[in-house]
C-alpha cells in the first residue's frame, strides 16, 4: 500500500494517525514535535520525523516542508484541519503543485487514489473529491476518527533541524482563552441560544461546563445579543463541532446552527417550545424550563465535589 505522511507539528492527532495507519496498511510516516515520538509510535508510525519547535513564519515552514516531502518521496500528505495547518497546507500544496481538499470528514483509498469526502455549505452537501496531481493532499477535521492504538512497530526516529528562523514573523504574546479546551476538541459541549435569555444565564451554563470539563458554545443570535463571545459561535459562520454529546439549551435550531453541530454523536435539546425545530434533530428532547434542569445538574455536580 502507498505510504501516507501525516503532519502533526502542533500536537499528535491520534484519530488521524489511526486512519492513516489503516489506509496505508501500516506504511505511516509522521512529522511531530520532539517529545511526542512515543505517542506517534503508539499509533503505529513507521518513520517519525521530529522538530523542536514550530516557527511563527508559516510561509517559511511550508517552504521547508515542501523540500522535505520531496526528499521523502511522499505522495499522500494529510494534516489535521487546525487553524495553523489550514494556513500551512495551502502554501505547501501550491509549492508541491498538488491538489488539496479542506476539512475532510471521510477518507478512503481506491487503488492509488485517495478519496476525500467533505461537507460543503454547512453540512448540507457532501462532496467526494479526487486529486488530479501526483501528490494528493487533504486536511481532516479534528475529532473525525477514533484513535486506535497499535502495537509498537519499532519505528525509525529521525530528528530534523527544522526551518531556519526568518525573523519576518514574530510572536509577541499569546493570550489563552479562559475556559479550557477548544470547542473542536471537547467531548461534551453545552450550547446556549436566545432561550437562555441573558448573559447571567450563560454564566450558569459556563459554570456547569467548567464543572463537567465541557466546552461552552452559542448560537449566532445569542452571540449577536452579546450573551457569549464570537469564538463560542457554532454554525455556518462559526465553528463546526462533532463532540460525543451536544446539549442544546434554549436553541431553536436554525439551519445555519444545525450545520455546525449535526455531526455530534448524541444530541440533547432542552427548550420550552415543544415545536422548536431543534427537537427534530435531537436524540433526546426535554420540553420545559432550561434553568430548572441546569440548576439541578449544577446542584448535583457541586454535591459530588
Amino acid at each position, binding site marked *: 500500500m502507498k505510504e501516507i505522511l501525516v503532519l502533526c507539528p502542533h500536537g499528535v492527532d491520534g484519530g488521524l494517525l489511526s486512519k492513516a495507519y489503516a489506509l496505508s496498511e501500516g506504511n505511516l510516516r509522521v512529522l511531530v514535535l520532539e517529545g511526542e515520538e512515543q505517542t506517534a509510535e503508539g499509533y503505529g508510525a513507521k518513520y517519525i520525523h521530529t522538530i523542536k519547535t514550530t516557527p*511563527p513564519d*508559516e*510561509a517559511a515552514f511550508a517552504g521547508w516542508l515542501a523540500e522535505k516531502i520531496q526528499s521523502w518521496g511522499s505522495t499522500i500528505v494529510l494534516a489535521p484541519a*487546525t*487553524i495553523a495547518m489550514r*494556513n500551512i*497546507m*495551502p*502554501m505547501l*500544496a*501550491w*509549492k508541491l503543485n498538488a*491538489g*488539496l*481538499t*479542506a476539512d475532510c470528514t471521510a477518507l478512503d483509498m481506491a487503488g492509488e487514489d485517495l478519496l476525500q469526502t467533505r*461537507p*460543503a*455549505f*454547512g453540512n*448540507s452537501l457532501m*462532496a*467526494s*473529491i*479526487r*486529486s*488530479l496531481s501526483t501528490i494528493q493532499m487533504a486536511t481532516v477535521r479534528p475529532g473525525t476518527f477514533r484513535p486506535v492504538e497499535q502495537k509498537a512497530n519499532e519505528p525509525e526516529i529521525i530528528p530534523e533541524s527544522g526551518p531556519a528562523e526568518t525573523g*519576518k*514573523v*514574530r510572536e*509577541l*504574546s*499569546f*493570550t489563552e*482563552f479562559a475556559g479550557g479546551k477548544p*470547542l473542536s476538541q471537547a*467531548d*461534551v459541549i453545552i450550547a446556549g441560544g436566545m432561550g437562555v435569555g441573558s448573559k447571567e444565564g450563560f454564566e450558569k451554563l459556563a459554570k456547569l461546563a467548567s464543572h*463537567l470539563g465541557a466546552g461552552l458554545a452559542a448560537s449566532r443570535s445569542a452571540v449577536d445579543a452579546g450573551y457569549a463571545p464570537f469564538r463560542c459561535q457554532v454554525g*455556518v*459562520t462559526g465553528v463546526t463541532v462533532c463532540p*460525543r*454529546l451536544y446539549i442544546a439549551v434554549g436553541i431553536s435550531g436554525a*439551519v*445555519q446552527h444545525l450545520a455546525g453541530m*449535526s455531526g455530534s454523536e448524541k*444530541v440533547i435539546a432542552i427548550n420550552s417550545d*415543544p415545536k422548536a425545530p431543534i*427537537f*427534530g*434533530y*435531537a436524540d*433526546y*428532547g*426535554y*420540553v*420545559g424550563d432550561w434553568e430548572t*434542569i441546569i440548576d439541578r*445538574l449544577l446542584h*448535583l455536580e457541586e454535591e459530588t465535589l
Partner: protein
Amino acid sequence: MKAVPAASTVEVDGEYRLKREGTSLQWNIADESALEAALRLKDGDGIVTVLTMGPAKLEAALKELLARGADRAVLITDRRMAGADTRATAAALKAAAEKTGPFDLILCGRRAIDGETGQVPGELAAALDILCVSNVERLEKTETGMRLFRRTENGVQELEAAGPLVVSMCEYAYHLRLPGILSMRRAKSKTVEILTADDLELKTGECGLKGSLTKVITMEAKYPGLRKGPKETDLSKATEQIQAMLREVRP
C-alpha cells in the same frame, strides 16, 4: 472578495435537498471584514482595490463597494474560469494582483460560507511568494510592518510581520461601513475594471475546471439527519437521564 449565496435564502426541498436556483448573492461576511480593515488602514494617499472573481452581474455589487469607500474595483470574469478549485482561483487572483498592483497588503476573508475551504489565501500567498497570516481578528500598522491578532483554537496570538503579506480576516472582526455621501458621489464617476483570462495571460488549461487539481466525483445532499428522539416533559427524569448520558462520555 467573494459573492456567495445569501445564507438566509438557503432552503431545502421535501427530500432535504438544498435548493440553489434563484438564490441571491451577497458578499461573504469575512470578506466584508477584510474590506473594512483595508479602509481603516489606508492613509490619505493610500489606495484600496477590491478584487473579485465571478459572473459579470457582479459589476453592480462592486459599484456599491466603491460607494462604501473602495478606490478601485476589479472583476475577473470569464466563462472559462467556471468550476475553478482553490488552486485555479489562486492562480487567477495572483495574475490579477500582479496586473493591478503593486500592493503592500492583500486582505481576504478566512473562508467563504459556501465552499468553506479557507485555502485561497494561503495558495495565493504561496503563488506570490509572500507571507500569510490567517484567522486575524484585529490588525494595525507599526513602524516596521503590521501587528496582527490571530485567533487560534485556544487563544489569541499577537504577531508582528514585516514585508508584503496576505492576511485572512475572521467574520465580524470589522463591520463594513455604509456608503457615505462623498464616496457615493466619487463612485458615480468610476467604472469597474474587467479582466478576462486573456487579459491575465492565462491559458485555457490554467483556468477553471481545467486548471484545477481536484475533481468533485459525486455531490450528495445531506441535510442534517433527522433524529426525532423522544420528547420528555418530566424535568426530574430529564436531569437523571442527562446525568446518565454525561457519565457515559466523561472519562
